[in-house]
């Protein structure tokens, strides 16, 4: 491994110090959270940097809290800390996903902010957050920006993040009414990247028989993780039935654009998206108290 002696690695203990380092290095510094993706990119030569700013020792960035009906997750919170956090347990769409991300070793270091900054369309954590209408809070020395996650990932591996900004936190609102969520994925190996991953989040009316709101989002079916408006529209306001779920699951292929790759053909992934959408939706409805 070739390493320049000029490289420097900073471990700031507070947010202002981290943002100051980013500003001073005028965009040449690379932010490190858990390091689980960046280590591979460095090793493979896809990335080089002389300055690293490690944000994992900033206490504020590892917090997980619910304040005024808003769940707040610091960017450097690890997948493991989310898995064991009481704040996250009500959101089964998230906990399902956390349990199938890689393996315990990776989850002990990998972070939610690192994942969102990496912007890989195959990340398991993104579809559940899209279903929860999450916002991404970005900070630089001069400014705080709040961007909807659905706009944050702009294209393949590209996030709406300036070089002097860091991801501070991810937030989403508590859900009203009886709700349930689920995440389903298929991958070639246990703990591997998803061939396709589907998250479903439903809110039922008080009678538990009508879907008052639903969100479906998918990983690994295009340049970014995406929602499926066709499927959602067909379900909102409908009475829960296996027939309507089956029919709506067939619509998901209209919203996705998978590619042929080593994990499977585009045709197979389209088929899988339908199957997994149906499974995730059934599980989400059952968890919300609906019956099928």
């Amino acid at each position: 491994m070739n390493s320049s002696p000029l490289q420097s690695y900073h471990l700031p203990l507070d947010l202002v110090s981290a943002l100051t380092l980013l500003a001073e290095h005028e965009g040449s510094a690379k932010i490190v959270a858990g390091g689980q993706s960046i280590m591979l990119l460095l090793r493979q030569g896809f990335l080089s940097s002389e300055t690293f700013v490690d944000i994992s020792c900033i206490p504020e960035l590892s917090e997980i809290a619910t304040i005024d009906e808003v769940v707040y997750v610091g960017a450097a919170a690890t997948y493991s800390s989310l898995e064991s956090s009481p704040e996250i347990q009500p959101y089964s769409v998230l906990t399902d996903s956390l349990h199938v991300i890689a393996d315990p070793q990776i989850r002990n270091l990998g972070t939610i902010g690192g994942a969102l900054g990496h912007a890989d369309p195959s990340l398991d954590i993104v579809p559940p957050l899209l279903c929860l209408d999450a916002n991404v809070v970005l900070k630089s020395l001069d400014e705080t920006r709040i961007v909807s996650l659905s706009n944050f990932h702009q294209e393949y591996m590209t996030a709406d993040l300036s070089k002097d900004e860091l991801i501070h936190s991810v937030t989403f609102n508590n859900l009203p009414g009886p709700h349930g969520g689920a995440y389903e994925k298929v991958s070639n190996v246990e703990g591997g990247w998803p061939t396709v991953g589907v998250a479903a989040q439903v809110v039922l009316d008080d009678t538990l028989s009508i879907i008052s709101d639903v969100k479906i989002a998918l990983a690994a079916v295009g340049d970014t993780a995406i929602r499926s408006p066709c499927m959602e529209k067909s379900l909102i306001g409908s009475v829960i039935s296996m027939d309507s779920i089956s029919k709506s699951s067939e619509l998901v292929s209209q919203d996705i654009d998978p590619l042929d790759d080593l994990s499977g053909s585009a045709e197979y992934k389209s088929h899988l998206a339908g199957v997994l959408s149906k499974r995730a939706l059934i599980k989400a409805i059952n968890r919300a108290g609906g019956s099928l």
Partner: protein
Amino acid sequence: MRINFELNGKSVSAEVLPHQPLRDILRSQFDLTGVKVGCHSGRCGVCSVLLDDRVVKSCLLMAPKANGRSIITIEGLSNNGELHPVQQAFKDNFALQCGYCTPGFIMATVDYLSSSPSNPPLRDEIKSAIKGNVCRCTGYEKIISAVSSAITSSEN
């Protein structure tokens, strides 16, 4: 850059480069060759160590991250020549063939045992706990038995 950390219970210091994996420091500067080299990409788990008592893959751990933290390798588990209960369980259950993956599996099991595993043990839960480790001699059944017996005996 120089980092200071606790390694198997002793305070140590090392000169590291920012993106050097800690695995290489442990092997080359401290001669801890129980930390194995495998896939080099976070898939196989043979380089697993404990970072502040949680299992991580040291090939994916940027060395500066160890600064101020505690690292335990397979060499740090036994106590005055007495095997750690997880090591003993692997031995008793013949849970190895070539042995190359064994340190990694043991470190993952030590972390799993500290996180209140189900008792009586649940096979699926054990499989999730060790899914970051690969055995190419195809010996998973005995490894699962070893983890299971380590859980059972930890309650006694």
